[in-house]
């Protein structure tokens, strides 16, 4: 099994990860339609760098009332046909990385089937796919 990990010290805040994610999955480029979020901004105390990623906690799967979301090999998987577009998964996501499309379906990070586009685009290794022992 793998999981996405974020090394803050390597992040320069370019957000290519979000642009690539939305381009791959939505066919257009929009940071808010990405399945992860990177924040890099200057607050009063200096530079703030944060990332929110799907960590496969499974809350969305547990909350899904129709069984449309199941846990695959370390990633949540969505069966569109079973989804009743209730949006509970998005509301339950502690990372707030599930958003809802215009057609009501949720945007679920599935690690792009094992080769995440965000990792491929990250220029300095801030995003990585790390192997973890299976359960």
């Amino acid at each position, binding site marked *: 099994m793998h999981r996405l990990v974020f090394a803050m010290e390597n992040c*320069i805040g*370019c957000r290519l990860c979000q*642009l690539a994610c939305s*381009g791959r999955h939505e066919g*257009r*480029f929009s940071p*808010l339609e990405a399945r992860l979020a990177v*924040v890099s901004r200057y607050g009063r105390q200096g*530079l703030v760098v944060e990332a929110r990623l799907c960590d496969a906690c499974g809350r969305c799967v547990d909350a899904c009332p129709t069984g449309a979301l199941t846990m695959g090999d370390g990633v949540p998987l969505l069966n569109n046909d079973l989804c009743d577009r209730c949006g509970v998964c998005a509301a339950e996501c502690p990372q707030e990385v599930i958003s809802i499309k215009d057609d009501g379906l949720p945007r679920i990070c599935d690690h792009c089937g094992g080769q995440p586009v965000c990792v491929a685009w990250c*220029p300095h290794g801030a995003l990585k796919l790390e192997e973890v022992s299976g359960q």
Partner: protein
Amino acid sequence: MKSYQGVVLRIDLTNQTSRREELNREWARQFWGGKGLGYRYLFAELAPGTDPLGPDNKLILATGPFTGTPVPCSGKLTIVTRSPATGTVLDCSVGGAIAGEIKYAGYDLVILEGRAPFPVVVRIEDDRVAFEPAGDLWGLGTHAVEHQLTDKWGAEYRILSIGPAGENLVPFACITSELYRQAGRGGVGTVMGAKNLKAVAVRGTGGVRVADAARLMDLALKALRSDVLTDTNLWAYTDGTPMIVELSQNAGILPTRNFQDGTFADFAKLSSPAVQAARMAKKACLSCGLGCGNYIRTGRAAVEGPEYETLAVAGANCGIGDLEAVAAFNAACDDLGLDTISAGGVVAFAMELTEKGLHDFGITFGDVERYLEIPDLIARRKGIGAELAAGVKKMAERFGGAEFAMQIKGLEFPGYEPRGSWAMALAYATAPRGACHMSAWPVAEEAYGSRDPFTIEGKAELVRNLQHYNAFKFSLSLCDFWAVSWETMAELLSAAVGEDLAAEELQLAGERIFNLARLFNVREGFSARDDNVPPRLVKDALPSGATAGKLIPPDRYAAMLKEYYELRGWTDDGRPASVKLEELGLAELGRKAGL
């Protein structure tokens, strides 16, 4: 054409109304975006002789076809207006992420016109435009403005704002975004101040569609890996622009004590290792894999910077060999809304006027404590700041020192000594906005490269070609720091807009865009006599280092300029000839410029 939103947002500050207009696609096809498209709209919309500080001047915020996409280094916003410092056309770019927000909000261009009856902030969230009274923000620095607005409306907003310098119409007031990114040159912030416009806050929640997203992503990822993150470009990540300090020192072109010397004894205190030692983090603009920004903390200030230009012009050129002091000067200028290049230039000029006994400003080269007081005095026009706020050209008219007034067309010099890079003299002199290093940067090939810097052989052609390249690249809103080829630009643009474009067509567009800027200036009365360099460059030999004994003989400069006009198809008076205008599809605009 895909990759455009097809919408221009026009904001009337006088009446506090806004309207959406269809993008002129014919112009977009010829001028593309950013610099070029901004020029085209400004040329069409400004009557000749428009007062840069009057309500009829416009401020055009221009994105490009790659804005908001993952094309590397495409995050820049271009701001186009008529310059209050020079009277020329002015385009000035700023990084960060605000260009993306404008595009995601649904606009290719935002045109701000008129003059608000009282200080306002324009708030744009997608198709909603609001005019918020800004009386309580007037007088504040840009940092406080950004913090207050993001506290109120959310951290997702990206903001352009001015400080007291813009409010007080200092002609070299800049626009700040994300605290440390600036549209620095030529007084874009002054125009905002004249419009009573304290800030523009933008949030966009939409997206950008291109003709072939999968192909654009393939090409862009390939470019990122094999063309951006390479040894040629990676200096921007490892060091950023402070790396240039040592290059300039070695080449003898580090402006020192108001261009009296080309080397600086304390250069090492301003060079990259010193900056890296104080570095806390790297920071990139939207879509940039290089992340040139160095966020540093010193005993005096935290700042993203100082960039090379600041280290050179506000450091060595003021005799300040102290990184903490330059960082503090930089942070103060960012917050007050002053261009660090012109601010450094006026301080250095005042120091030399004092040294030469022409006028006693009470400041001398290397006096750190007095130097650090000056940004605030200029921005608020207090004490000697009232005189320095005039800029170098007007200071010379009043106090003398025209021989060493380092400005062209009223814009103060950036950080490259042309006596050690003769093409740079031509680049400064023929740049549309005055002494500017962004129109062409031939130092890379001469002073830092392998071409003989002390000859005019081939330099007219070099400068002309670089000017076309930058004119086009900046019309795609790509950053200077990606040395992208014409062919790569053509491939990426073809995938984005859905046409099969060849490099040659883009090169012609670069020439068209550069000539349009010239037409604007000709229409405003500029001619060959304005393409001259300060007397110091052709009269005084430099004293030390690789440029010891060097000046630019006046006949050599004249010959280089003449060759340049001929190559360009311009008359001896520096006007684009009708054959050239016809070739570029600019004949009608030429007639409007009186040609």
